[in-house]
């Protein structure tokens, strides 16, 4: 083979069409979704002109900030025609995002001026416009995805107290903004949360999952006891609404000890547990997640995940990674192949012990330590990662329904798992 032919053959697929051609076993819609998450979106004035807060979910309640650093009324996120969500962050035009514009009044994703795919703005639930007992808009207490209620009992993280917040995270700056600009409470009253959830559930078939997450809190007799207490109090109040002891739900939290996990399991109705390790490499974990490294450590984080399977059961525990930060200079892997190999090896080590790994696409946010970087990961890398994580679920028979397109919507790899059949 000639040198030019060699370089042509080995050239990594770059465009959406090239990546789709290279991965015919992956739905084009999922590839598109992944690329939209990777590059972000910009809404045209026309696209924003059809945004109606009575009908659509508007940005503003998210625990993390946007890529363009603004809090402004824009669609919370998008739905594709396969029911998959694209959870995106508005992005400045200079960063070459996809554009949302209209075709015959219908929002469409555009790239290079060409319409690619129709999208729907997330529908607004009926309770969003109502006020809570303390005079706060209910949407600022419990937010919604197309099928999920989201409760953030505490919008702060004590890892930031000594400067050890995760490098990709902007929870504290975002909380300050949200508190000031949107009157979002930093901590929630469990009784008020349950009242809002009850109001939300008056709408037929609107929600099939309840999701809790907050920043880490090292306080308490044992580290993180205070964080556990917060979740238990909120979940107990919410649990009073249901006639079953357990209800479809997910707790995303710090990696807790067996005793803490057992308490959560025994005293609440929560059915699944997620503790995000963020990056599957010990050195990078220590670098990007210094608070988690200080208070738990990489190997202990993994061990606690595995122990959580004993408490919550197989197919009910997973961990999330912020895919892309493992490539961020100067400490990241030199090549995507090297990163994939390392991540999938580590993910397999967890999978064979009953723990799934899911990823989100890293979106550098201005309020984070890594906010000035650009995500170096290619679309092809993300698709290969999605296929690799999905393949591990197939090999180790790990269902992921609690964190799928309906219950979360932010993981391209679990979108692929919609076709899993473990019958």
């Amino acid at each position: 083979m000639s040198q030019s032919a060699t370089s042509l053959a080995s050239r990594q697929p770059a465009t959406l069409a090239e990546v789709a051609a290279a991965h015919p076993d992956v739905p084009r819609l999922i590839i598109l979704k992944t690329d939209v998450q990777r590059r972000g979106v910009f809404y045209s004035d026309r696209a924003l002109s059809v945004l109606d807060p009575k009908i659509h979910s508007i940005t503003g309640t998210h625990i993390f900030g946007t890529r363009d650093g603004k809090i402004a009324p824009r669609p919370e996120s998008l739905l594709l025609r396969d029911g998959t969500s694209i959870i995106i962050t508005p992005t400045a035009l200079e960063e070459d995002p996809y554009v949302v514009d209209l075709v015959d009044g219908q929002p469409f994703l555009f790239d290079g001026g060409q319409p690619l795919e129709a999208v729907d703005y997330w529908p607004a639930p009926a309770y969003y416009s109502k006020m809570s007992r303390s005079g706060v808009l209910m949407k600022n207490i419990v937010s919604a995805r197309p099928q999920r209620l989201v409760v953030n009992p505490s919008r702060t993280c004590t890892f930031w107290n000594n400067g050890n917040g995760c490098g990709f995270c902007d929870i504290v700056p975002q909380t300050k903004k949200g508190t000031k600009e949107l009157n979002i409470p930093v901590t929630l009253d469990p009784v008020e949360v349950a009242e809002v959830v009850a109001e939300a559930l008056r709408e037929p078939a609107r929600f099939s999952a309840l999701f809790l997450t907050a920043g880490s809190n090292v306080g308490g007799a044992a580290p993180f006891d205070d964080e556990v207490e917060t979740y238990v109090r909120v979940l107990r109040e919410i649990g009073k609404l249901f006639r079953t002891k357990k209800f479809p739900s997910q707790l995303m939290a710090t990696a807790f000890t067996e005793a803490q996990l057992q308490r959560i399991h025994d005293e609440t109705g929560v059915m699944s547990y997620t503790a995000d390790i963020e990056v599957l490499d010990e050195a990078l974990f220590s670098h990007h997640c210094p608070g988690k490294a200080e208070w738990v450590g990489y190997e202990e984080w993994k061990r606690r995940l595995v122990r959580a399977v004993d408490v919550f059961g197989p197919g009910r525990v997973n961990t999330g990674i912020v895919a892309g930060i493992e490539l961020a200079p100067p400490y990241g892997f030199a090549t995507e192949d090297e990163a994939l190999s390392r991540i999938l090896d580590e993910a397999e080590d967890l999978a064979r012990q009953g723990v799934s790994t899911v990823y989100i696409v890293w979106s550098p946010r201005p309020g984070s330590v890594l906010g000035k970087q650009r995500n170096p990961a290619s679309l092809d890398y993300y698709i290969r990662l999605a296929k690799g994580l999905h393949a591990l679920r197939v090999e180790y028979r790990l269902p992921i329904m609690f964190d799928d397109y309906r219950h979360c919507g932010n993981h391209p790899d679990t979108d692929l798992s919609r076709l899993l059949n473990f019958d």
Partner: protein
Amino acid sequence: MFPQLTPELLEVLAHPATHKVIATIDEDGSPHAVPSPFLHARPDGLLVHYELLETSATNRNLLRGLWFDRKFAVTLVGALGQTFVIKAVPAKAEISGPAFGRAFESVRSVLGDADLAAVWLLRPQAVIDETYTTRKRDEEDRHPFSIHLDRLLVPRDQAISDRTQP
């Protein structure tokens, strides 16, 4: 453009006594046909299938069809034997919003404590009239060689009568 659904077909589709079956293809290529009791048409000509079970083979197969451009078939059998086969492709899966909520309530008004996984919008690609009387007539007109000879015999009584005529 996709084929128009005729008034006759729409009448059969809307009739409560009509049997409605949706047939999809499993990953291994084997067919999978199940009733679709809530199947109906929208004014824009799209068919609507309520999928009640998230992990059903039909739900997975429709998703696979939407992702990878695979067709499936809907069969309608009316009380008088009117039969239509509609070849279609999945156009959209709705999982949230006011229309989804209304569908959920509609299902529960019939089945009681039931759930709803998705409202599938299905785009017809072809409509085939498989009503037996229609197909029989067509078959005999266009394919006369398929007719068994004994069906063409002069009726026995008439033949005997003819032979005994002086």
